[in-house]
C-alpha cells in the first residue's frame, strides 16, 4: 500500500509510535491493576486514563508555548513535559 500521500517522516512516525505505545501500555496496566477514580490537587475525579489525557494535552501546550515564547530548542520543553506528566500522575 502506497502511503506517500500521508507524507510520513521519521520524527512524526516516532511521535505516533510513542502515542500508540502509551495507549497499549495503559490498557495492559489497566488489565493487570484495574484503575479507580481519585481526587487530587485539582479537586476533580480522575482515572489513570484521564491523567494520561491531561499529560498529553498539557505537553502539547507546553511545546506550543515554548515555541511561541522562547524558540525552537524543544528538548527543554520535552523535559518540562515529562516532569509535568510525572506530577500529573502523582498528584492530580
Amino acid at each position, binding site marked *: 500500500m502506497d502511503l*506517500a*500521500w*500521508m*507524507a*510520513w*517522516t521519521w*520524527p*512524526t512516525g516516532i*511521535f*505516533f509510535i510513542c502515542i500508540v505505545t502509551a495507549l497499549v501500555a495503559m490498557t495492559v496496566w489497566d488489565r493487570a491493576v484495574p484503575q479507580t477514580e481519585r481526587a487530587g490537587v485539582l*479537586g*476533580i*475525579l480522575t482515572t489513570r486514563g484521564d491523567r494520561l*489525557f491531561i499529560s498529553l*494535552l498539557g505537553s*502539547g*501546550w507546553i511545546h*506550543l508555548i515554548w*515555541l*511561541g515564547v522562547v*524558540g*525552537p530548542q*524543544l528538548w527543554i520543553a520535552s523535559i518540562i513535559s515529562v516532569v509535568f506528566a510525572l506530577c500529573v500522575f502523582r498528584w492530580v
Partner: protein
Amino acid sequence: MEKKVNQKAWFFVLPVVLLVAFSALIPLMTVVNYSVQDTFGNNAFFWAGTDWFTDILRSERFHSALWRQFLFSGIILAIEVPLGIAIALAMPRRGLWVPVCLVLMALPLLIPWNVVGTIWQVFARVDIGLLGHTLANLGIDFNYTQDPLDAWITVVVMDVWHWTSLVVLLCYAGLQSIPDAYYQAARIDGASKWAIFRYIQLPKLHRVLLIAVLLRFMDSFMIYTEPFVVTGGGPGSATTFLSIDLVKMAIGQFDLGRAAAFSIIYFLIILLVSWAFYTVMTGKTKESDR
C-alpha cells in the same frame, strides 16, 4: 462459578473503529505530517521542522483571528444559553401547542448552513433586503458590507436565529423529564417561580446544559459557512474567524504546511477549552448527584 466474559462484542465495534480511523485518525495523522514539511504539490515534501508553528504562534494575523473567534463564541454563548432556557421555560408543557412550538423551534435547524448565510445576506442588504431596507427607512445607518460593527451584529444575530433552537430543544427535553412531584413539593412549601427555577429546574438542567454549552462552543468556534457567505470575512478582516483564515491559507494560498500547523494549534485550543468546560460542568453534576 466465575462468570465468563463474552469478548465477541469487540467484533461489533470494529466497523466503528475502522470508520473513525478513515474519517478522523488518518486525516489527523496526515495533518501532523504536513505540519512539519513544506510542499509545492506532486507529493514532493521538504522538511521544515517547527518553523510553521513558530511562524503561526508569532503572527499578528493569527492572534487577531483567535481574539475574534473567542469574542464571537463568548457573545453567542452569553446570548443563546440564557435565551434558550427562557424560551424553553415559556413553552407549554402539555396540549395542542406543544407540537406546534417544537416544529417552529426545529425549523431553523433543518436549513443548510449555506442557505442560512444566503438568507441573511439578502435579508440584511440595504437595497433589496427587508431588514436592511427597513432599518434604512428608520434612519439607521446600517451597512454590513462596509461597517465592521454592522457586519458583527449581522453575523451574531444570524447565529442566534439559527442555533438558539438547539439550546431550546435540549432544555425543553430536560424540563419535561422533571417529575411533577418536585413541583408539587415546591407548591406545598410556597416556593416562588424564581425559587423553583433556581433550586429545581436549573440543577436538573445541568446535564443538558453541559451538552448545549459544549455543542454551541465547539460549533461556534469552528464556524465557517454562514459568515463566509454573508461577509466573506470582511469588511477588511473584521469577521475573519479562525476557520475562514485557515481555508484562505490552505486553499487560497495553497500553503499546506503552514495551514496544517494552524490546524493543529486550532485543534489543541478546542480540545483544551472543551475539556475545561466538561470538567467544570461534570464536576458540578457529580456534586449535585450526591
